[in-house]
């Protein structure tokens, strides 16, 4: 027994193990990465904005005031309300609308990633694990979906399903399925031939158990990275769909449709499009920085 305890006392060993764990802890590593920290803070702020929208928004985002329309940032209305970011073409407070717009973006980002992720991961797991004919059928369908440009696919779906936030989530989610499936399938191919999967089988575990208890957890890090990045593109997709008039329709505020309405007043009231655009830009950058950071932390080999 003594030979493995070595020179250190048990307490000292425990302490060392704890320190090492902390140093290797993904969370701590992430916070030490400056760019990732910036991304993390941005993402947190957007989430907070979305959750606390009813509390922090200075005005009702739908309150119309025709007299105060298209005013620039800092405008004080006749009723004595300060519109910090100006007003839109109906005189609604833009700051409030952007804050409420964050709700849409966050819900769509999470919702569509969950929809696309769950379906895509399941299909990828099955295809990768079963192989053969099942694999061929699933992946050829995915290839078929890949053949359509992402936005086109989402547009087709929204056109079929109709607009509205639920349908936007479904459309973007389903359009995300093939990339999730393809990525997961590749990972499964790597993991399923690992010795521990074989060992698990030798010790009496069934297919489903091996798939979900051993293979899935071992593929989770690339999935997390991809999902984070995917949220950024989902926000962009929602904005694009709304911009094209297929996504969230006014009067519900979304960054995409604020951008659309701003398009008409680029000369007279440029703040409209600029502010909505900046919101999208910053949020997308935030998610991408966070995703990059997570990847560096979870997969040291990929770091350049």
């Amino acid at each position: 027994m003594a030979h493995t305890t070595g020179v250190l006392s048990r307490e000292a060993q425990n302490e060392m193990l704890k320190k090492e764990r902390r140093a290797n802890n993904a969370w701590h590593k992430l916070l030490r990465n400056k760019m990732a920290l910036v991304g993390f803070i941005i993402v947190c702020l957007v989430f907070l904005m979305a959750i606390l929208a009813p509390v922090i928004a200075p005005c009702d985002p739908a309150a119309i005031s025709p007299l105060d329309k298209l005013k620039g940032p800092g405008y004080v209305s006749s009723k004595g309300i300060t519109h910090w970011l100006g007003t839109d073409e109906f005189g609604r407070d833009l700051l409030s609308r952007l804050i409420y717009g964050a709700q849409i973006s966050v819900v769509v980002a999470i919702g569509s990633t969950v929809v696309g992720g769950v379906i895509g991961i399941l299909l990828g797991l099955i295809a990768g694990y079963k192989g053969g004919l099942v694999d061929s059928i699933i992946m050829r369908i995915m290839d078929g979906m890949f053949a359509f440009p992402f936005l086109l696919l989402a547009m087709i779906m929204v056109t079929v399903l109709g607009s509205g936030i639920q349908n936007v989530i479904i459309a973007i989610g389903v359009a995300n399925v093939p990339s999730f499936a393809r990525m997961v399938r590749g990972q499964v191919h790597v993991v399923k031939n690992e010795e521990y999967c074989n060992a698990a089988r030798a010790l009496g575990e069934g297919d489903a158990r091996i798939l979900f208890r051993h293979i899935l957890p071992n593929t989770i890090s690339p999935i997390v990275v991809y999902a984070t990045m995917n949220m950024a593109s989902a926000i962009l997709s929602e904005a694009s769909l709304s911009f094209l008039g297929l996504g969230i329709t006014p009067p519900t505020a979304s960054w995409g449709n604020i951008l659309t309405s701003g398009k008409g007043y680029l000369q007279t009231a440029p703040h409209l499009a600029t502010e909505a655009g900046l919101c999208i830009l910053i949020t997308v950058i935030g998610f991408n920085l966070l995703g990059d950071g997570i990847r560096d932390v979870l997969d040291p080999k990929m770091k350049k």
Partner: protein
Amino acid sequence: MSEEILKVENLKTYFFTASGVAKAVDGVSYTLKKGEILGIVGESGSGKSVSASSVIRLLPKTGRVVDGTILFEGKDMRKISDKELRKIRGSDISVIFQDPMTSLDPVFKVGSQMVELIRTHNKVSKEEARKIAVENLALVGIPDPERRMNAYPHELSGGMCQRVMIAMAISCHPKFMIADEPTTALDVTVQAQVLGLLKELQEKTDTAIMLITHNLGIVWKMCDTVMVMYAGKTVEFADMKELYKNPLHPYTWGLLDSIPKLSDTEKAELKAIPGTPPDLRLTGKCCNFYNRCPYATDICREQVPELVEVAPGHKVACHHQNGVETLVRGKEAASDE
């Protein structure tokens, strides 16, 4: 002691590849009694591992058992359903793999893997399973088992991981264990410890073990009976003591000679068996050892030697050692050539 646990008869496992059928195991028979350790020896690709994985149907996709019977406690392992098989795997039959570092799932703690295994095969609560796991870790000589339960596999050394694997393997009181080169990936000093542990546990629990190895030293230390395999066939089967005292097959001689001895002078060359094993797609028409055997004659090229019992419990497959003729070890090429 004489209760038969495993009876394998005329097992044939072939691999169906694009370039032909490889006869990885070609007509192998053996029995294992309760509390017995059978050593399977042979060089890489001789079919040792495949003959073991055939028993628990753990073959790669291209491999298939094409003939023979495998009886485990009277149950035909080739016919039972997948569900029954899963129940047997890990509880009645367990496996210890070659590389302990990769045989444990890297994302889970050692303890949770053990608890999960115990709960797969026994109806016990999480706390009870945990207690059993800690007991087993202590049993395999892991210091401070409570703490090790919370360690991830990468935090343990190879020897420790192998002990954990053994602890997992014995956690459901198997009647039969397959140890597939359990010490190949380990340090020599750790090898001795692990083997000692295996032997000790085996004596305590009366488990039958099939020990696959290419190290004859391990066989000497551990086994009751030994089967020497070459190119998918059994070439010699004997009691461990009998094999060392009176080895009969030229291949066994080669294996024994290739172990360097302490008594060798500095200049003595290491004796290796010349040549390489035959392509498994082409075997089965002559004595497989023909091209490397210093005693080979025409009959060796033309006929497959039968496995003949030359003395009680001692079988050998050689045309010149079938009880009628005898070869003298070290005397090259028979005189009739």
